[in-house]
């Protein structure tokens, strides 16, 4: 439905290795009008052409402990790259004490799992507002 939105919709990349959480997240975000790209963290860390700014996501939702690789490492890599460092990263983890680690890895925000849908959308909107 979001594809039909008149203004080009904002794109969110979800990096999450649990397929159900990934599906729930993308359903929530798609219902809210965002374009969602998902990956499970096992493949290419950023499945886009970094030189083509139009293909870059506007926001990344990143699971901290992926089975394939460390979410924190991905965050560090993206934040260290000039072409991607401006993309806000919101980290997700079921470890409530992971907020500090997320911040240390360069994430812009942290949401504890399980999250409230309204809370998640509020965080996402805030980062995409400017």
């Amino acid at each position, binding site marked *: 439905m979001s594809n039909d939105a008149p203004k080009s919709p904002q794109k969110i990349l979800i990096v999450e290795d*649990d397929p*159900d*959480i990934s*599906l*729930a*997240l993308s*359903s*929530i975000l798609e*219902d809210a009008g965002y374009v969602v790209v998902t990956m499970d963290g096992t493949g290419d860390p950023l499945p886009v052409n970094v030189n083509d700014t139009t293909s870059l996501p506007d926001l990344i939702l990143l699971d901290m*402990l992926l089975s394939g690789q460390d979410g924190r490492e991905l965050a560090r890599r993206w934040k260290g790259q000039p072409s991607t*460092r*401006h993309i*806000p990263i919101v980290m997700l983890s*079921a*470890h*409530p*004490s992971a*907020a*500090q680690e997320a*911040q240390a890895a360069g*994430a*812009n*925000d*942290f949401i504890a*799992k*399980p*999250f*409230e*849908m309204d809370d998640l959308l509020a*965080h996402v909107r*805030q*980062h995409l507002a400017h």
Partner: protein
Amino acid sequence: MTITPNRVRAFSHREHEYHQEGAHRPHRSEHTVQFYETDEFLVRSLGRFIREGLETGESCIVVATGAHHQRVETYLLAQGVDLHPASKQGAYLALDAEETLSAFMVAGSPDPARFTSIIGDIIERAAARGHPVRVFGEMVALLWMDGNQAAAIELERLWNDLRDNPYPFALFCAYAMGGFVGNKYSAAFAEICRQHSSVIPDENYTTLGSEEERQRAVTLLQQKASSLEKEVAERKAVEDQLRVALAAQRQLEERKNAFISMASHELKTPITSLKGFTQVLRQRLQTQADPQTLLFLDRMDVQLKKLTNLISDLLDISKMQTGMLAFRETIFDLDELVRETVENVQAAITTHHIRLRGETQAQIAGDRDRLGQVLINLLTNAIKYSPRAETVIVRLRSYDGQAEVSVQDFGIGIDREQCERIFEQFYQVADPVHTYPGLGIGLYIAHTIIERHGGRLWVESEKGAGSTFYCTLPLLKNGSVASSSCEQRESHNATRREKMKRENRADE
């Protein structure tokens, strides 16, 4: 100052102790050590040592406690030896052990220069009479009994070193067996004694009549010594076993922690998708479904929240048990936290009205989230245990450098005997009529959190008349934190995402 090991004469039955008539005469410059179990034995040995010296015209210096001086004088008088004439002639010098000791002790240990000068002078003066000098001392024993074993060992060394002075003397020292056994320094001390001294066995040996009996006694002593050694070895083995068991226990604790942490993560993962789907469904059915379907979805959501909280509590208690619960300290406005928490809890309930009265105007240093967790626990308990009431009152006040938050309910109340126990782990108020949900760890967690913040959590209650939980927290001292508290308060008031966003903008 090198110390040459002396001949060890322990257990050599020909030269064993002063108690036996003429059995052992101190050689000049000899340092003799005697262990004793009873004062009587010491007094007899010392009496013999003095009498022998005086009879052979030697000068005797006795550095002993007041009590021992008195007892040995009485003992010698009974033996027909009066110390007063010898004392007048300068042949007998009685010094108080404590006073003498204090003359050369500096900061808890004997000062070598002072010791050599003070004791050296005394011996020199005694030697000026032109006769050999014999000295009895129990200053080392005093230090030992005082628990200052390091100083005792040092003083023992100083005495040994003093033998090299130009006025040779025979030294006799006595140590109470009781103070010598089972001390971590005893091995070091025994080693020093062995190196420099004649060591004489104690009374058990010397009171025996015949040679044969003595031989047997010596054998027994040796057996006793070897059985002691065996016991020490056994104890050491047990200690080693304990150490291994402790290390294993610690390892198990670590594994348990890692397990609980992993388990809580694993449990939260399915809850995350369940909750996500529930909320998506609720959203999608908002306009299509009947009210009951929506209500079911709401109840599912509430139950999922409960499940999440239970998992968090389990994780907390496991961390607390191993002291792994970490706090993130900030300085924050307590009234604001209470207001916020009351609003959040109120938003989720319709059965009760939470009234907030008073204010603390307090800045608190602590983990804001954890303290919020305590408040939530107190509020949900108040609601849970007052099913027929409609009001919960939260009161705020400050007094005596403390901020106090109290939560009063008008529910079932708590028996006086149970008021202390409810803060224990896994304890729940027993009610024959109702059962109340929960793990029985909430108040234990709350209590631990408050204690770790230097505060107190207690309850005043009566069965059937409701309960009031009081929680106090230390106020920040005025002035000292004025600027930093404002700064930190601001940073805390700004939500984490706003803060992070600011940093992000700075990045761009």
